[in-house]
Protein backbone atom coordinates (compact mmCIF):
# COMPACT_ATOMS: atom_id res chain seq x y z
CA UNK A 1 0.00 0.00 0.00
CA UNK A 2 1.98 2.91 -1.14
CA UNK A 3 1.18 5.87 -3.31
CA UNK A 4 -2.02 7.84 -2.93
CA UNK A 5 -4.30 7.59 -5.95
CA UNK A 6 -7.23 9.68 -4.80
CA UNK A 7 -7.35 12.15 -1.97
CA UNK A 8 -10.66 13.58 -0.98
CA UNK A 9 -10.73 16.44 1.53
CA UNK A 10 -13.76 18.04 3.18
CA UNK A 11 -16.15 16.89 0.52
CA UNK A 12 -19.64 18.30 1.02
CA UNK A 13 -22.62 17.51 -1.19
CA UNK A 14 -25.85 19.47 -0.98
CA UNK A 15 -29.08 19.20 -2.87
CA UNK A 16 -31.43 22.07 -3.39
CA UNK A 17 -34.98 20.83 -2.91
CA UNK A 18 -38.31 22.63 -2.87
CA UNK A 19 -38.32 23.50 0.80
CA UNK A 20 -34.66 23.83 1.60
CA UNK A 21 -31.37 22.07 1.29
CA UNK A 22 -30.42 18.45 1.84
CA UNK A 23 -26.99 17.91 3.34
CA UNK A 24 -26.20 14.60 1.73
CA UNK A 25 -22.47 14.50 2.50
CA UNK A 26 -20.63 16.57 5.10
CA UNK A 27 -16.88 17.03 5.42
CA UNK A 28 -15.86 13.70 4.05
CA UNK A 29 -12.10 13.16 4.05
CA UNK A 30 -10.37 9.97 2.94
CA UNK A 31 -7.61 8.60 0.75
CA UNK A 32 -7.46 5.72 -1.65
CA UNK A 33 -4.09 4.11 -2.30
CA UNK A 34 -3.07 2.30 -5.42
CA UNK A 35 -4.18 -1.29 -5.57
CA UNK A 36 -6.23 -1.29 -2.40
CA UNK A 37 -9.87 -2.02 -1.92
CA UNK A 38 -11.84 0.27 0.34
CA UNK A 39 -15.39 -0.39 1.45
CA UNK A 40 -17.81 2.42 2.16
CA UNK A 41 -20.54 1.05 4.38
CA UNK A 42 -23.74 2.64 5.59
CA UNK A 43 -27.54 2.56 5.38
CA UNK A 44 -29.29 3.88 2.31
CA UNK A 45 -29.28 7.67 2.42
CA UNK A 46 -26.02 7.83 4.33
CA UNK A 47 -24.32 9.63 1.45
CA UNK A 48 -22.18 6.80 0.10
CA UNK A 49 -23.35 7.00 -3.48
CA UNK A 50 -23.65 10.79 -3.58
CA UNK A 51 -20.05 11.30 -2.49
CA UNK A 52 -18.83 9.05 -5.28
CA UNK A 53 -21.10 10.72 -7.84
CA UNK A 54 -19.70 14.07 -6.72
CA UNK A 55 -16.14 12.86 -7.25
CA UNK A 56 -17.05 11.59 -10.72
CA UNK A 57 -18.82 14.86 -11.53
CA UNK A 58 -22.13 13.07 -12.06
CA UNK A 59 -24.37 14.80 -9.54
CA UNK A 60 -27.86 15.62 -10.73
CA UNK A 61 -28.59 19.24 -11.65
CA UNK A 62 -29.80 20.27 -8.21
CA UNK A 63 -26.68 18.97 -6.48
CA UNK A 64 -23.57 20.99 -5.63
CA UNK A 65 -20.30 19.78 -4.19
CA UNK A 66 -17.56 21.62 -2.35
CA UNK A 67 -14.22 20.53 -0.96
CA UNK A 68 -11.17 19.24 -2.70
CA UNK A 69 -10.59 16.05 -4.61
CA UNK A 70 -7.16 15.28 -6.00
CA UNK A 71 -6.81 12.40 -8.39
CA UNK A 72 -3.28 11.51 -9.50
CA UNK A 73 -2.10 14.98 -8.57
CA UNK A 74 -4.89 16.74 -10.42
CA UNK A 75 -7.70 18.60 -8.73
CA UNK A 76 -10.87 17.24 -10.27
CA UNK A 77 -13.81 18.32 -8.14
CA UNK A 78 -16.15 20.40 -10.33
CA UNK A 79 -13.60 20.27 -13.13
CA UNK A 80 -14.79 20.99 -16.66
CA UNK A 81 -16.54 18.38 -18.75
CA UNK A 82 -13.51 18.09 -21.04
CA UNK A 83 -11.16 17.32 -18.14
CA UNK A 84 -13.58 14.85 -16.58
CA UNK A 85 -14.34 13.09 -19.83
CA UNK A 86 -10.68 12.24 -20.24
CA UNK A 87 -10.66 10.56 -16.83
CA UNK A 88 -14.17 9.12 -16.64
CA UNK A 89 -14.62 5.81 -18.34
CA UNK A 90 -10.93 5.43 -18.94
CA UNK A 91 -8.94 5.54 -15.72
CA UNK A 92 -11.79 6.09 -13.28
CA UNK A 93 -14.92 4.02 -13.72
CA UNK A 94 -18.13 3.37 -11.92
CA UNK A 95 -20.23 0.25 -11.71
CA UNK A 96 -23.79 1.31 -11.03
CA UNK A 97 -26.22 -0.42 -8.79
CA UNK A 98 -29.17 -0.86 -11.08
CA UNK A 99 -28.10 -2.60 -14.25
CA UNK A 100 -31.59 -2.59 -15.73
CA UNK A 101 -32.01 1.17 -15.56
CA UNK A 102 -28.30 1.80 -16.02
CA UNK A 103 -28.03 0.43 -19.53
CA UNK A 104 -29.52 2.33 -22.43
CA UNK A 105 -32.58 0.22 -23.30
CA UNK A 106 -32.69 0.92 -27.02
CA UNK A 107 -29.04 0.35 -27.79
CA UNK A 108 -27.41 -3.01 -28.43
CA UNK A 109 -25.10 -3.98 -25.61
CA UNK A 110 -22.24 -4.36 -28.07
CA UNK A 111 -22.59 -0.76 -29.15
CA UNK A 112 -22.72 0.40 -25.56
CA UNK A 113 -19.44 -1.35 -24.87
CA UNK A 114 -17.70 -0.36 -28.09
CA UNK A 115 -18.43 3.35 -27.77
CA UNK A 116 -16.18 3.52 -24.72
CA UNK A 117 -13.24 2.02 -26.59
CA UNK A 118 -13.87 4.14 -29.65
CA UNK A 119 -14.00 7.26 -27.50
CA UNK A 120 -11.00 6.65 -25.28
CA UNK A 121 -8.67 4.44 -27.24
CA UNK A 122 -9.53 5.51 -30.74
CA UNK A 123 -10.17 1.94 -31.85
CA UNK A 124 -12.12 1.22 -35.01
CA UNK A 125 -15.36 -0.76 -34.80
CA UNK A 126 -13.83 -4.16 -35.52
CA UNK A 127 -11.01 -3.80 -33.00
CA UNK A 128 -13.38 -2.40 -30.42
CA UNK A 129 -15.63 -5.40 -30.95
CA UNK A 130 -12.78 -7.84 -30.47
CA UNK A 131 -11.62 -6.11 -27.34
CA UNK A 132 -15.16 -5.87 -25.93
CA UNK A 133 -15.72 -9.57 -26.48
CA UNK A 134 -12.42 -10.26 -24.78
CA UNK A 135 -13.53 -8.30 -21.73
CA UNK A 136 -16.94 -9.98 -21.75
CA UNK A 137 -15.13 -13.29 -21.60
CA UNK A 138 -13.08 -12.05 -18.66
CA UNK A 139 -16.23 -11.20 -16.72
CA UNK A 140 -17.57 -14.65 -17.62
CA UNK A 141 -20.41 -13.34 -19.69
CA UNK A 142 -21.85 -16.41 -21.40
CA UNK A 143 -21.63 -16.54 -25.21
CA UNK A 144 -20.58 -12.95 -25.77
CA UNK A 145 -20.34 -13.26 -29.55
CA UNK A 146 -23.87 -14.51 -29.92
CA UNK A 147 -25.30 -11.96 -27.50
CA UNK A 148 -23.29 -9.02 -28.76
CA UNK A 149 -26.17 -7.44 -30.65
CA UNK A 150 -28.83 -8.10 -28.05
CA UNK A 151 -30.66 -5.41 -26.12
CA UNK A 152 -30.47 -5.13 -22.33
CA UNK A 153 -34.03 -6.35 -21.80
CA UNK A 154 -33.16 -9.62 -23.50
CA UNK A 155 -30.56 -10.46 -20.86
CA UNK A 156 -30.90 -11.76 -17.33
CA UNK A 157 -30.10 -9.61 -14.32
CA UNK A 158 -26.79 -11.35 -13.77
CA UNK A 159 -25.78 -10.86 -17.39
CA UNK A 160 -26.69 -7.18 -17.27
CA UNK A 161 -24.63 -6.72 -14.15
CA UNK A 162 -21.71 -8.36 -15.89
CA UNK A 163 -22.14 -5.90 -18.74
CA UNK A 164 -21.95 -3.07 -16.22
CA UNK A 165 -18.74 -4.53 -14.82
CA UNK A 166 -17.32 -5.09 -18.29
CA UNK A 167 -18.09 -1.44 -19.11
CA UNK A 168 -15.92 -0.43 -16.18
CA UNK A 169 -13.08 -2.76 -17.13
CA UNK A 170 -12.78 -1.97 -20.83
CA UNK A 171 -9.93 0.51 -20.49
CA UNK A 172 -8.19 -1.17 -17.52
CA UNK A 173 -8.94 1.67 -15.14
CA UNK A 174 -6.90 2.51 -12.06
CA UNK A 175 -9.89 3.24 -9.90
CA UNK A 176 -13.29 1.60 -9.90
CA UNK A 177 -16.22 2.77 -7.83
CA UNK A 178 -18.56 -0.17 -7.40
CA UNK A 179 -21.95 0.98 -6.12
CA UNK A 180 -23.63 -2.06 -4.61
CA UNK A 181 -22.84 -4.07 -7.71
CA UNK A 182 -24.52 -7.19 -6.41
CA UNK A 183 -27.58 -6.13 -4.42
CA UNK A 184 -29.97 -6.67 -7.30
CA UNK A 185 -28.76 -10.21 -7.87
CA UNK A 186 -29.58 -13.49 -6.24
CA UNK A 187 -27.18 -14.86 -3.77
CA UNK A 188 -25.27 -17.39 -5.89
CA UNK A 189 -24.57 -14.92 -8.67
CA UNK A 190 -23.68 -12.36 -6.04
CA UNK A 191 -21.03 -14.68 -4.66
CA UNK A 192 -19.69 -15.41 -8.14
CA UNK A 193 -19.38 -11.76 -9.03
CA UNK A 194 -17.72 -10.84 -5.74
CA UNK A 195 -15.28 -13.69 -6.10
CA UNK A 196 -14.56 -12.52 -9.57
CA UNK A 197 -13.97 -8.93 -8.53
CA UNK A 198 -11.62 -10.09 -5.82
CA UNK A 199 -9.54 -12.02 -8.34
CA UNK A 200 -9.67 -9.15 -10.74
CA UNK A 201 -8.39 -6.68 -8.22
CA UNK A 202 -5.34 -8.84 -7.49
CA UNK A 203 -4.88 -9.40 -11.19
CA UNK A 204 -4.95 -5.91 -12.70
CA UNK A 205 -3.90 -3.89 -9.66
CA UNK A 206 -6.91 -1.68 -9.72
CA UNK A 207 -8.08 0.22 -6.69
CA UNK A 208 -11.68 -0.54 -5.89
CA UNK A 209 -14.05 1.50 -3.79
CA UNK A 210 -16.86 -0.80 -2.84
CA UNK A 211 -20.08 0.89 -1.78
CA UNK A 212 -22.33 -1.45 0.13
CA UNK A 213 -24.73 -1.67 3.02
CA UNK A 214 -23.66 -5.26 3.59
CA UNK A 215 -20.75 -5.61 5.99
CA UNK A 216 -20.35 -9.22 4.87
CA UNK A 217 -19.59 -8.12 1.33
CA UNK A 218 -17.12 -5.52 2.60
CA UNK A 219 -15.39 -8.02 4.89
CA UNK A 220 -14.99 -10.41 2.02
CA UNK A 221 -13.40 -7.99 -0.37
CA UNK A 222 -11.91 -4.94 1.29
CA UNK A 223 -8.69 -3.94 2.98
CA UNK A 224 -10.11 -0.93 4.72
CA UNK A 225 -13.62 0.14 5.61
CA UNK A 226 -15.22 3.54 5.95
CA UNK A 227 -18.50 3.64 7.85
CA UNK A 228 -20.85 6.49 7.01
CA UNK A 229 -23.91 7.70 8.85
CA UNK A 230 -26.17 10.61 7.89
CA UNK A 231 -23.67 12.04 5.40
CA UNK A 232 -20.62 11.82 7.68
CA UNK A 233 -17.82 9.39 8.18
CA UNK A 234 -18.24 7.96 11.66
CA UNK A 235 -15.47 5.40 11.61
CA UNK A 236 -12.69 4.14 9.43
CA UNK A 237 -10.03 1.50 9.85
CA UNK A 238 -8.73 -1.80 8.62
CA UNK A 239 -11.22 -4.58 8.08
CA UNK A 240 -9.89 -6.48 11.05
CA UNK A 241 -10.21 -3.54 13.41
CA UNK A 242 -13.66 -2.62 12.21
CA UNK A 243 -14.86 -6.14 12.80
CA UNK A 244 -13.04 -6.93 16.00
CA UNK A 245 -12.51 -3.56 17.64
CA UNK A 246 -15.36 -1.33 16.42
CA UNK A 247 -15.16 2.04 18.16
CA UNK A 248 -18.43 3.64 17.11
CA UNK A 249 -21.74 2.44 18.51
CA UNK A 250 -23.23 2.62 15.03
CA UNK A 251 -20.64 0.23 13.65
CA UNK A 252 -21.24 -2.04 16.58
CA UNK A 253 -24.98 -1.99 15.96
CA UNK A 254 -24.42 -2.68 12.26
CA UNK A 255 -22.27 -5.66 13.12
CA UNK A 256 -24.88 -7.03 15.49
CA UNK A 257 -27.53 -6.61 12.80
CA UNK A 258 -25.57 -8.63 10.26
CA UNK A 259 -26.90 -12.19 9.98
CA UNK A 260 -24.33 -14.80 10.91
CA UNK A 261 -24.12 -18.43 9.98
CA UNK A 262 -22.92 -19.47 13.41
CA UNK A 263 -25.70 -17.70 15.29
CA UNK A 264 -28.58 -19.48 16.96
CA UNK A 265 -31.29 -19.56 14.24
CA UNK A 266 -34.06 -19.03 16.77
CA UNK A 267 -32.59 -15.88 18.13
CA UNK A 268 -33.80 -12.61 16.63
CA UNK A 269 -31.28 -10.45 14.87
CA UNK A 270 -31.00 -7.25 16.91
CA UNK A 271 -32.16 -4.46 14.64
CA UNK A 272 -31.15 -0.86 15.03
CA UNK A 273 -34.19 0.96 16.44
CA UNK A 274 -35.49 4.17 14.92
CA UNK A 275 -34.71 5.77 11.58
CA UNK A 276 -31.83 7.86 10.25
CA UNK A 277 -32.32 11.60 10.78
CA UNK A 278 -33.81 13.95 8.24
CA UNK A 279 -30.90 15.30 6.20
CA UNK A 280 -32.66 18.63 5.83
CA UNK A 281 -32.62 19.39 9.53
CA UNK A 282 -29.74 17.58 11.16
CA UNK A 283 -29.47 17.71 14.93
CA UNK A 284 -26.82 19.87 16.54
CA UNK A 285 -25.08 16.99 18.21
CA UNK A 286 -24.16 13.55 16.98
CA UNK A 287 -26.71 12.43 14.37
CA UNK A 288 -26.80 8.93 15.82
CA UNK A 289 -27.71 10.00 19.37
CA UNK A 290 -31.40 9.15 19.10
CA UNK A 291 -30.72 5.56 18.17
CA UNK A 292 -27.57 5.10 20.25
CA UNK A 293 -27.56 2.75 23.22
CA UNK A 294 -24.52 4.46 24.72
CA UNK A 295 -25.59 8.07 24.27
CA UNK A 296 -24.51 10.59 26.88
CA UNK A 297 -25.81 14.05 27.62
CA UNK A 298 -22.94 15.58 25.74
CA UNK A 299 -23.82 13.75 22.52
CA UNK A 300 -26.94 15.80 22.03
CA UNK A 301 -25.33 19.19 22.49
CA UNK A 302 -22.05 18.72 20.68
CA UNK A 303 -20.91 16.90 17.60
CA UNK A 304 -17.95 14.56 18.10
CA UNK A 305 -15.13 15.10 15.62
CA UNK A 306 -13.24 12.24 14.06
CA UNK A 307 -10.31 11.31 16.27
CA UNK A 308 -7.63 8.70 16.22
CA UNK A 309 -8.54 5.86 18.51
CA UNK A 310 -5.48 3.71 17.85
CA UNK A 311 -3.03 3.18 14.97
CA UNK A 312 -4.78 4.77 12.00
CA UNK A 313 -8.25 3.90 13.20
CA UNK A 314 -10.58 6.90 13.25
CA UNK A 315 -13.95 7.23 14.92
CA UNK A 316 -16.30 10.10 15.72
CA UNK A 317 -17.62 9.31 19.16
CA UNK A 318 -17.16 10.68 22.67
CA UNK A 319 -17.58 7.31 24.27
CA UNK A 320 -14.29 5.59 24.91
CA UNK A 321 -14.61 1.87 24.25
CA UNK A 322 -12.99 -0.35 26.82
CA UNK A 323 -10.44 -2.95 25.69
Amino acid sequence: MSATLLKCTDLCVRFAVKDGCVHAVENLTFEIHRGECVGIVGESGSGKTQSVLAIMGLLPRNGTSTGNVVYKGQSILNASRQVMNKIRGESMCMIFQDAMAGLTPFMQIGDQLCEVLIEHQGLNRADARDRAIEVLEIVQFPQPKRRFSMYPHELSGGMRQRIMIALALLCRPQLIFADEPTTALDITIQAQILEFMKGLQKHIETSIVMITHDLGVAANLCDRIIVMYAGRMVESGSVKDIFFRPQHPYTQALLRATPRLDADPDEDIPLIPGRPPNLQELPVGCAFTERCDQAQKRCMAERPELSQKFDDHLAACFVEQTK
Partner: protein
Amino acid sequence: MPGYIIRRLFFAIPTMFVIILLTFLLMHMAPGGPFDDLVDIDPEVLANLRAAYNLDDTVWKQFLAYLGGLLQGDLGPSLVYREQTVGHIIAVGLPVSVTIGLSAMTIGLSIGLVCGIVAALKHNSVLDYTLMAAAMTGVAVPTFVTAPLLILIFGLYLSWLPISGWNGGQIQHLILPVTALAIPKIAAIARIARGAMLESINTDYVRTARAKGLGEFKVIVHHVLRPVFIPITSYLGPAIAGVMTGSVIIEKIFGLPGIGRAFVDAALNRDYPVVMGIVIVYAAFIVLLNLIVDILYGFLDPRIRQT
Protein backbone atom coordinates in the same frame (compact mmCIF):
# COMPACT_ATOMS: atom_id res chain seq x y z
CA MET B 1 -40.68 -7.79 -36.39
CA PRO B 2 -42.71 -9.05 -39.40
CA GLY B 3 -45.01 -10.92 -37.00
CA TYR B 4 -45.50 -7.71 -35.10
CA ILE B 5 -46.44 -5.83 -38.28
CA ILE B 6 -48.88 -8.54 -39.35
CA ARG B 7 -50.54 -8.52 -35.93
CA ARG B 8 -50.97 -4.73 -36.19
CA LEU B 9 -52.42 -5.15 -39.67
CA PHE B 10 -55.01 -7.62 -38.41
CA PHE B 11 -55.94 -5.06 -35.84
CA ALA B 12 -56.58 -2.42 -38.51
CA ILE B 13 -58.99 -4.33 -40.74
CA PRO B 14 -61.81 -4.95 -38.22
CA THR B 15 -61.39 -1.36 -37.06
CA MET B 16 -62.19 -0.10 -40.55
CA PHE B 17 -65.10 -2.49 -40.88
CA VAL B 18 -66.70 -1.32 -37.64
CA ILE B 19 -66.22 2.33 -38.56
CA ILE B 20 -67.90 1.79 -41.92
CA LEU B 21 -70.75 -0.08 -40.26
CA LEU B 22 -71.21 2.60 -37.60
CA THR B 23 -71.27 5.53 -40.00
CA PHE B 24 -73.60 3.62 -42.27
CA LEU B 25 -76.06 2.89 -39.49
CA LEU B 26 -75.86 6.45 -38.26
CA MET B 27 -76.66 7.81 -41.69
CA HIS B 28 -79.47 5.37 -41.95
CA MET B 29 -80.97 6.60 -38.70
CA ALA B 30 -81.09 10.16 -39.99
CA PRO B 31 -84.59 11.53 -39.91
CA GLY B 32 -85.84 12.77 -43.24
CA GLY B 33 -84.74 11.62 -46.64
CA PRO B 34 -82.76 13.34 -49.32
CA PHE B 35 -85.87 13.94 -51.43
CA ASP B 36 -87.95 15.63 -48.74
CA ASP B 37 -87.45 18.98 -50.42
CA LEU B 38 -89.20 17.80 -53.53
CA VAL B 39 -92.70 18.48 -52.26
CA ASP B 40 -94.86 18.24 -55.35
CA ILE B 41 -93.31 15.13 -56.68
CA ASP B 42 -95.20 12.40 -58.44
CA PRO B 43 -95.17 9.34 -56.10
CA GLU B 44 -94.12 7.19 -59.03
CA VAL B 45 -91.09 9.33 -59.74
CA LEU B 46 -90.23 9.26 -56.06
CA ALA B 47 -90.47 5.46 -56.06
CA ASN B 48 -88.17 5.34 -59.07
CA LEU B 49 -85.72 7.67 -57.41
CA ARG B 50 -85.71 5.57 -54.25
CA ALA B 51 -85.16 2.45 -56.29
CA ALA B 52 -82.32 4.07 -58.18
CA TYR B 53 -80.55 4.84 -54.90
CA ASN B 54 -81.40 1.42 -53.39
CA LEU B 55 -83.36 3.09 -50.62
CA ASP B 56 -86.08 0.44 -50.52
CA ASP B 57 -83.90 -2.54 -49.72
CA THR B 58 -83.38 -3.73 -46.16
CA VAL B 59 -80.63 -2.04 -44.19
CA TRP B 60 -78.37 -5.07 -44.47
CA LYS B 61 -78.77 -5.36 -48.19
CA GLN B 62 -78.00 -1.67 -48.56
CA PHE B 63 -74.96 -2.06 -46.33
CA LEU B 64 -73.66 -5.04 -48.26
CA ALA B 65 -74.20 -3.22 -51.53
CA TYR B 66 -72.34 -0.22 -50.15
CA LEU B 67 -69.51 -2.38 -48.83
CA GLY B 68 -69.26 -4.15 -52.18
CA GLY B 69 -69.03 -0.82 -53.95
CA LEU B 70 -66.47 0.40 -51.45
CA LEU B 71 -64.22 -2.57 -52.12
CA GLN B 72 -64.22 -1.59 -55.78
CA GLY B 73 -63.52 2.00 -54.87
CA ASP B 74 -67.09 3.12 -55.53
CA LEU B 75 -68.46 5.38 -52.80
CA GLY B 76 -71.78 5.92 -54.53
CA PRO B 77 -73.39 9.05 -55.98
CA SER B 78 -73.78 12.39 -54.28
CA LEU B 79 -77.35 13.18 -53.40
CA VAL B 80 -77.01 16.91 -53.90
CA TYR B 81 -74.68 17.23 -56.85
CA ARG B 82 -76.38 14.57 -58.89
CA GLU B 83 -73.89 14.62 -61.71
CA GLN B 84 -70.96 13.90 -59.36
CA THR B 85 -69.96 10.74 -57.53
CA VAL B 86 -68.63 10.83 -53.98
CA GLY B 87 -65.39 9.38 -55.29
CA HIS B 88 -65.07 12.28 -57.70
CA ILE B 89 -65.65 14.89 -54.99
CA ILE B 90 -63.03 13.28 -52.78
CA ALA B 91 -60.55 12.91 -55.64
CA VAL B 92 -60.80 16.64 -56.35
CA GLY B 93 -60.47 17.72 -52.71
CA LEU B 94 -57.97 15.25 -51.37
CA PRO B 95 -54.79 16.63 -53.01
CA VAL B 96 -55.52 20.08 -51.58
CA SER B 97 -56.13 18.78 -48.06
CA VAL B 98 -53.16 16.44 -48.16
CA THR B 99 -50.85 19.19 -49.37
CA ILE B 100 -51.67 21.63 -46.60
CA GLY B 101 -51.99 18.89 -43.99
CA LEU B 102 -48.65 17.30 -44.75
CA SER B 103 -46.89 20.65 -45.00
CA ALA B 104 -48.29 21.68 -41.64
CA MET B 105 -47.25 18.37 -40.05
CA THR B 106 -43.73 18.57 -41.46
CA ILE B 107 -43.28 22.13 -40.26
CA GLY B 108 -44.87 21.32 -36.90
CA LEU B 109 -42.58 18.36 -36.38
CA SER B 110 -39.33 20.00 -37.42
CA ILE B 111 -39.75 23.36 -35.70
CA GLY B 112 -41.50 21.82 -32.69
CA LEU B 113 -38.75 19.28 -32.13
CA VAL B 114 -35.98 21.84 -32.45
CA CYS B 115 -37.71 24.24 -30.03
CA GLY B 116 -38.45 21.51 -27.51
CA ILE B 117 -34.94 20.10 -27.56
CA VAL B 118 -33.31 23.52 -27.32
CA ALA B 119 -35.60 24.47 -24.42
CA ALA B 120 -34.71 21.27 -22.56
CA LEU B 121 -30.98 21.71 -23.14
CA LYS B 122 -31.23 25.26 -21.81
CA HIS B 123 -33.52 24.16 -18.99
CA ASN B 124 -34.66 27.00 -16.68
CA SER B 125 -33.01 29.67 -18.82
CA VAL B 126 -34.69 32.75 -20.25
CA LEU B 127 -34.77 31.05 -23.65
CA ASP B 128 -36.53 28.03 -22.12
CA TYR B 129 -39.17 30.21 -20.47
CA THR B 130 -39.71 32.29 -23.60
CA LEU B 131 -40.13 29.25 -25.82
CA MET B 132 -42.50 27.58 -23.39
CA ALA B 133 -44.60 30.71 -22.92
CA ALA B 134 -44.88 30.96 -26.70
CA ALA B 135 -45.80 27.29 -26.87
CA MET B 136 -48.45 27.72 -24.19
CA THR B 137 -49.95 30.55 -26.24
CA GLY B 138 -49.79 28.45 -29.39
CA VAL B 139 -51.69 25.66 -27.70
CA ALA B 140 -54.33 27.89 -26.15
CA VAL B 141 -55.22 30.16 -29.09
CA PRO B 142 -57.67 28.33 -31.36
CA THR B 143 -57.00 27.99 -35.08
CA PHE B 144 -60.06 29.98 -36.08
CA VAL B 145 -58.69 32.92 -34.13
CA THR B 146 -55.12 32.73 -35.44
CA ALA B 147 -56.22 32.28 -39.03
CA PRO B 148 -58.31 35.47 -39.25
CA LEU B 149 -55.57 37.34 -37.37
CA LEU B 150 -52.96 36.15 -39.86
CA ILE B 151 -55.20 37.24 -42.70
CA LEU B 152 -55.77 40.58 -41.03
CA ILE B 153 -52.07 41.26 -40.48
CA PHE B 154 -50.27 39.71 -43.44
CA GLY B 155 -53.09 39.80 -45.94
CA LEU B 156 -55.01 43.00 -45.29
CA TYR B 157 -52.74 45.40 -43.39
CA LEU B 158 -49.39 44.45 -44.88
CA SER B 159 -50.73 43.02 -48.16
CA TRP B 160 -47.84 40.58 -48.37
CA LEU B 161 -49.80 37.46 -49.08
CA PRO B 162 -53.05 36.47 -50.77
CA ILE B 163 -55.82 35.88 -48.26
CA SER B 164 -57.77 33.17 -49.98
CA GLY B 165 -58.02 30.77 -52.86
CA TRP B 166 -55.98 27.83 -54.02
CA ASN B 167 -54.68 28.88 -57.41
CA GLY B 168 -53.30 25.46 -58.25
CA GLY B 169 -51.37 25.24 -55.00
CA GLN B 170 -49.10 28.25 -55.56
CA ILE B 171 -46.70 28.71 -52.69
CA GLN B 172 -47.96 32.20 -51.74
CA HIS B 173 -51.43 30.76 -51.35
CA LEU B 174 -50.11 28.02 -49.10
CA ILE B 175 -48.14 30.09 -46.59
CA LEU B 176 -50.93 31.52 -44.45
CA PRO B 177 -53.17 28.45 -44.22
CA VAL B 178 -50.22 26.17 -43.53
CA THR B 179 -48.86 28.54 -40.88
CA ALA B 180 -52.22 28.77 -39.14
CA LEU B 181 -52.50 25.00 -39.19
CA ALA B 182 -48.92 24.40 -38.06
CA ILE B 183 -48.81 26.78 -35.08
CA PRO B 184 -50.71 24.60 -32.59
CA LYS B 185 -48.73 21.56 -33.74
CA ILE B 186 -45.38 23.33 -33.31
CA ALA B 187 -46.45 24.36 -29.84
CA ALA B 188 -47.73 20.95 -28.77
CA ILE B 189 -44.73 19.08 -30.17
CA ALA B 190 -42.29 21.51 -28.55
CA ARG B 191 -43.91 20.92 -25.17
CA ILE B 192 -43.91 17.16 -25.53
CA ALA B 193 -40.32 17.08 -26.81
CA ARG B 194 -39.11 19.25 -23.95
CA GLY B 195 -40.82 17.11 -21.33
CA ALA B 196 -39.55 13.86 -22.78
CA MET B 197 -36.07 15.24 -23.16
CA LEU B 198 -35.91 16.42 -19.56
CA GLU B 199 -37.10 13.04 -18.40
CA SER B 200 -34.61 11.24 -20.60
CA ILE B 201 -31.70 13.40 -19.50
CA ASN B 202 -32.28 12.38 -15.89
CA THR B 203 -32.29 8.63 -16.42
CA ASP B 204 -29.75 6.26 -14.96
CA TYR B 205 -28.55 5.18 -18.36
CA VAL B 206 -27.67 8.71 -19.34
CA ARG B 207 -25.67 8.93 -16.14
CA THR B 208 -23.93 5.73 -17.20
CA ALA B 209 -23.19 7.28 -20.57
CA ARG B 210 -21.67 10.31 -18.87
CA ALA B 211 -19.69 8.05 -16.57
CA LYS B 212 -18.23 6.51 -19.70
CA GLY B 213 -16.61 9.85 -20.45
CA LEU B 214 -18.46 10.36 -23.71
CA GLY B 215 -18.61 13.88 -25.07
CA GLU B 216 -21.83 15.79 -24.45
CA PHE B 217 -22.81 15.66 -28.11
CA LYS B 218 -22.51 11.88 -28.23
CA VAL B 219 -24.40 11.52 -24.96
CA ILE B 220 -27.27 13.59 -26.31
CA VAL B 221 -27.42 12.04 -29.76
CA HIS B 222 -26.91 8.39 -28.82
CA HIS B 223 -28.48 8.14 -25.39
CA VAL B 224 -30.83 11.04 -24.72
CA LEU B 225 -32.57 11.78 -27.98
CA ARG B 226 -34.03 8.45 -28.98
CA PRO B 227 -36.68 8.16 -26.26
CA VAL B 228 -37.82 11.69 -27.07
CA PHE B 229 -39.24 10.33 -30.30
CA ILE B 230 -41.45 7.83 -28.54
CA PRO B 231 -44.00 10.29 -27.06
CA ILE B 232 -43.69 12.34 -30.25
CA THR B 233 -44.57 9.23 -32.24
CA SER B 234 -47.57 8.51 -30.06
CA TYR B 235 -48.62 12.12 -30.52
CA LEU B 236 -48.53 11.71 -34.31
CA GLY B 237 -51.95 10.02 -34.38
CA PRO B 238 -53.76 12.76 -32.43
CA ALA B 239 -51.69 15.38 -34.26
CA ILE B 240 -52.83 14.14 -37.65
CA ALA B 241 -56.39 14.04 -36.39
CA GLY B 242 -55.90 17.60 -35.14
CA VAL B 243 -54.55 18.74 -38.49
CA MET B 244 -57.49 17.14 -40.28
CA THR B 245 -59.92 18.86 -37.92
CA GLY B 246 -58.04 22.11 -38.26
CA SER B 247 -57.98 21.85 -42.02
CA VAL B 248 -61.78 21.82 -42.07
CA ILE B 249 -61.73 25.25 -40.46
CA ILE B 250 -58.75 26.46 -42.45
CA GLU B 251 -60.22 25.41 -45.78
CA LYS B 252 -63.40 27.24 -44.91
CA ILE B 253 -61.59 30.43 -43.84
CA PHE B 254 -59.16 30.52 -46.75
CA GLY B 255 -61.64 29.26 -49.31
CA LEU B 256 -59.57 26.23 -50.26
CA PRO B 257 -61.28 23.49 -52.31
CA GLY B 258 -60.25 20.60 -49.99
CA ILE B 259 -62.28 17.71 -48.68
CA GLY B 260 -62.69 19.40 -45.31
CA ARG B 261 -64.80 22.07 -46.90
CA ALA B 262 -66.62 19.48 -48.97
CA PHE B 263 -67.36 17.64 -45.75
CA VAL B 264 -68.86 20.65 -44.02
CA ASP B 265 -70.90 21.61 -47.08
CA ALA B 266 -72.17 18.05 -47.33
CA ALA B 267 -73.06 18.02 -43.62
CA LEU B 268 -74.95 21.31 -44.01
CA ASN B 269 -76.77 19.97 -47.11
CA ARG B 270 -77.39 16.56 -45.56
CA ASP B 271 -75.60 14.95 -48.46
CA TYR B 272 -75.10 11.72 -46.53
CA PRO B 273 -73.15 9.64 -49.04
CA VAL B 274 -70.54 12.40 -49.27
CA VAL B 275 -70.38 12.78 -45.48
CA MET B 276 -69.98 9.04 -45.10
CA GLY B 277 -67.43 8.72 -47.83
CA ILE B 278 -65.27 11.46 -46.36
CA VAL B 279 -65.51 10.07 -42.83
CA ILE B 280 -64.43 6.69 -44.16
CA VAL B 281 -61.52 8.18 -46.08
CA TYR B 282 -60.40 10.13 -43.00
CA ALA B 283 -60.72 7.10 -40.77
CA ALA B 284 -58.78 4.98 -43.25
CA PHE B 285 -56.07 7.62 -43.24
CA ILE B 286 -55.83 7.59 -39.48
CA VAL B 287 -55.94 3.83 -39.20
CA LEU B 288 -53.15 3.61 -41.76
CA LEU B 289 -51.16 6.23 -39.91
CA ASN B 290 -51.59 4.49 -36.60
CA LEU B 291 -50.31 1.37 -38.29
CA ILE B 292 -47.21 3.24 -39.41
CA VAL B 293 -46.85 4.74 -35.93
CA ASP B 294 -47.02 1.28 -34.35
CA ILE B 295 -44.33 0.04 -36.71
CA LEU B 296 -42.19 3.09 -35.94
CA TYR B 297 -42.57 2.28 -32.26
CA GLY B 298 -41.13 -1.12 -32.89
CA PHE B 299 -38.08 0.48 -34.43
CA LEU B 300 -37.70 3.04 -31.66
CA ASP B 301 -38.09 0.74 -28.71
CA PRO B 302 -36.78 -2.81 -29.05
CA ARG B 303 -38.80 -3.85 -26.03
CA ILE B 304 -42.08 -3.42 -27.90
CA ARG B 305 -41.21 -5.76 -30.76
CA GLN B 306 -41.71 -8.83 -28.67
CA THR B 307 -45.19 -8.08 -27.44
